[in-house]
C-alpha cells in the first residue's frame, strides 16, 4: 500500500505542483492518476520514488516513511516505466532488462536468465535478447520497458504514460497484455495517464486530479461514470457515460433466439429457405459467424465478398455494452452472441438488452458522497 499524507510540492519559483494530496493506492491494485496536463499527476508519481522531493507531507509505503529510506534502495524496490521506455541505447535488450538485478548484485548468469524469462513473459521472441533498442519498434521497446521494470520482481510499479507514444492499435494490445500480466502478478501499481479511456479501462480505482494535484474524485471506474462529483469531473470523463458504464456490467443469460444459418457456398435457394426477416447468418466450419446476407439479393452461391460486415459479436456473459452493441450494429437488428470459442449461440434484440439494463440498479453513491450531496439513502422497499 502506498499512502500520500497531505503531500505538497512547491517549486522554488512558488508554483504549487501538488497541494496537500491525500490518497491511498491499495496493495495489489492499479491506481490511475488522471487529469489534464499540469494537474500534478507526474509530479505526484515521481515523489513516490523520490525522483522529486516533496516540500510537505509524507509518503508511506506500507508502514515505512519513504523520506527515511535510502534513495537508491527505495528505487531498486520500485519498478518504473516511462513514455518512450527510456531504454539504454548502448545495452542489449537482455542487458537492459537485467539492469536492476545486476544493481542488486544477483550476478551475471542469474540476471541474464531472469531477463530471458521476462522477455518471453512480455511476448517477445528470445532472439531479441541480443538486439539493441534502436532495432525494435516503439511498441516492442515499451514491452522491454515493462520487462525491465519487472525484472527484480518489485512489489510496486510506477508507470508514467507508458502507452501514450504508440499507435492506437498497439496501445490497445499493450493495455490488454498489461492487464493480463497484472492479473498474474498482482503488483501495487500507480499509473499516470492523461487519457480518461485508458484510466477507465486499466484502473481498479481512478483518481481524477485537477490543477495543482487537487484530488477531484477517487472512485472505481463504474462509480466515476455513474456519479461524477462535479462539472469538472463530468466534463473530463466525457460523453456517452451511460453507454460506457455498461462495460462494467455483466450480461445475464439472455433468452436467446435460435438462429438458422448457412455455410459459405450455400445456394440462393438454401439461403432463402433459412432466412428470417430477409436475413440469414453465414457461419464457417467451426460455427463461427462470418457475416449476414440477404438471400433475396444474391444470384450465385454465397461468397465472402457478399457478406454484410460491420456487425460486432458479443461473448455470452460478457459486458452488457458488447451485447447492446452487437444488436445495434447488426444489419438484421439481431445481435449475435457467441460462446468462448466464438461459436454461435443465438441472437438477442436491442430491446431485450435494454430491458435487462432497466432492471439493473445504477451504482449507488457511497455514504460520504451522499452526505456531501445532502441526500438520504435510498430506502429499501419492504418486500
Amino acid at each position, binding site marked *: 500500500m502506498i499512502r500520500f499524507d497531505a503531500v505538497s510540492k512547491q517549486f522554488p519559483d512558488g508554483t504549487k505542483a501538488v497541494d496537500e494530496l491525500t490518497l491511498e493506492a491499495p496493495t495489489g491494485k492499479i491506481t490511475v492518476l488522471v487529469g489534464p496536463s499540469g494537474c500534478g499527476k507526474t509530479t505526484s508519481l515521481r515523489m513516490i*520514488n523520490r525522483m522529486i522531493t516533496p516540500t510537505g507531507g509524507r509518503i508511506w509505503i506500507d508502514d515505512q516513511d519513504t523520506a527515511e529510506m535510502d534513495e537508491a534502495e527505495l528505487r*531498486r524496490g520500485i519498478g*518504473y516505466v516511462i513514455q518512450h521506455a527510456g531504454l*539504454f541505447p*548502448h*545495452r542489449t535488450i537482455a542487458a537492459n532488462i537485467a539492469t536492476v538485478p545486476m544493481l542488486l548484485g544477483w550476478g551475471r548468469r542469474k540476471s541474464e536468465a531472469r531477463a530471458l524469462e521476462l522477455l518471453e513473459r512480455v511476448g517477445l521472441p528470445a532472439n531479441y535478447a541480443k538486439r*539493441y533498442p*534502436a*532495432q525494435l*519498434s516503439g511498441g516492442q521497446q515499451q514491452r522491454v520497458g515493462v520487462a525491465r521494470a519487472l525484472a527484480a520482481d518489485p512489489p510496486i510499479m510506477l508507470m508514467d504514460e507508458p502507452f501514450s507514444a504508440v499507435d492506437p492499435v498497439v496501445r490497445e494490445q499493450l493495455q490488454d497484455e498489461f492487464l493480463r500480466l497484472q492479473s498474474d502478478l498482482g503488483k501495487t501499481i500507480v499509473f499516470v495517464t492523461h487519457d480518461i479511456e485508458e484510466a477507465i479501462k486499466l484502473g481498479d480505482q481512478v483518481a481524477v486530479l485537477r490543477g495543482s494535484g487537487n484530488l477531484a474524485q477517487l472512485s472505481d471506474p463504474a462509480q466515476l461514470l455513474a456519479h461524477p462529483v462535479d462539472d469538472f469531473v463530468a466534463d473530463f470523463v466525457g460523453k456517452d457515460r451511460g453507454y460506457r458504464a455498461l462495460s462494467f456490467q455483466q450480461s445475464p443469460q439472455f433468452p436467446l433466439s435460435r438462429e438458422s444459418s448457412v455455410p459459405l457456398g450455400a445456394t440462393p435457394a438454401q439461403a432463402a429457405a433459412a432466412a428470417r426477416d430477409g436475413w440469414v447468418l453465414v457461419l464457417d466450419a467451426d460455427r463461427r459467424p462470418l457475416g449476414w446476407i440477404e438471400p433475396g439479393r444474391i444470384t450465385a452461391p454465397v461468397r465472402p465478398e457478399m457478406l454484410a460486415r460491420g456487425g460486432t459479436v458479443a461473448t455470452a456473459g460478457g459486458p452488457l455494452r458488447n451485447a447492446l452493441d452487437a444488436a445495434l450494429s447488426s444489419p438484421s437488428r439481431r445481435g449475435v452472441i457467441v460462446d468462448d470459442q466464438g461459436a454461435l449461440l443465438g441472437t438477442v434484440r436491442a430491446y431485450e438488452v435494454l430491458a435487462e439494463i432497466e432492471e439493473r440498479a445504477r451504482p449507488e453513491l457511497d455514504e460520504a458522497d451522499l452526505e456531501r450531496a445532502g441526500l438520504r439513502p435510498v430506502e429499501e422497499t419492504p418486500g
Partner: protein
Amino acid sequence: MTWLRDHFVDVLGLAGQHIYLAGVPLVLGLLIALPLGWLASRYKALYPFLIIGTGLLYTIPSLALFIMLPLLLGNGVLNPINVLVAMTIYTVALLVRTVADGLGAVPDAVNQSATAMGYKRLRRFMSVELPLAVPVISAGLRVAAVSNVSIVSVATLIGVSQLGSLFTDGFSRAFLDPIIVGVVACVLLALLFDVAILLVTRLATPWQRAGSPTA
C-alpha cells in the same frame, strides 16, 4: 631518398618520441577533461566559465608555453615533462567542451530511468552517461590528436627532440630531404592516432552499428 635509408633508425626513434609526447597528454588530458566536462554539463551555471576558461588555454602560443612552463614548474628547460604538461593543457582545452556536450546529449529519459532504477551518481556516470557520450568525445579526441601531433613539433625550439627536429635540421643545412620526411611522418602519425581512436571507438560502441527495426 637515400637520406631516409641512411637515417631510418634515427627517424624511427624521433617518431617514437613524437608519439610519446603527443599521445600521453592525450590520455592525461582526457582524464582531466572528464570531471571538468561533467561539472560543466551537470551545473549549468558553471558551463560558460569552464568552457570559455579552458578554451582560452588553447590560445596561448605554444612557444610561449614551452618557455614559461620550465620557470613555473622549476624543471630544466630540456626536461620533456614541460612538453607533456603543455600538451596536456592543450588537450584539456579542446576536450572539456566536447565532454560537456557529449554528456549533455544523453537523452533525459535515459538519465531519468537510470536514476529511477536506483543508480547512484558515480555508477550512472560510468555505466550510462559516459558510454553514451563516447561517440561525441571520440570526435573531439580525434581533433585533439591531430592538433597534438602538429604542436609537439614546436618543442624542437626548446631542445626536446621529436620529428620536429627534422625541420630545424633541414632548415639549418638548407637541405630539403629531412623536412619532407618529417612532414610525411607527421601526417602518418596523425593518421595512426586517428585510426587507433576510431578503432577503439568502434569496439566501445557496438550499439551504434545496430540497424533500424526489423520484423
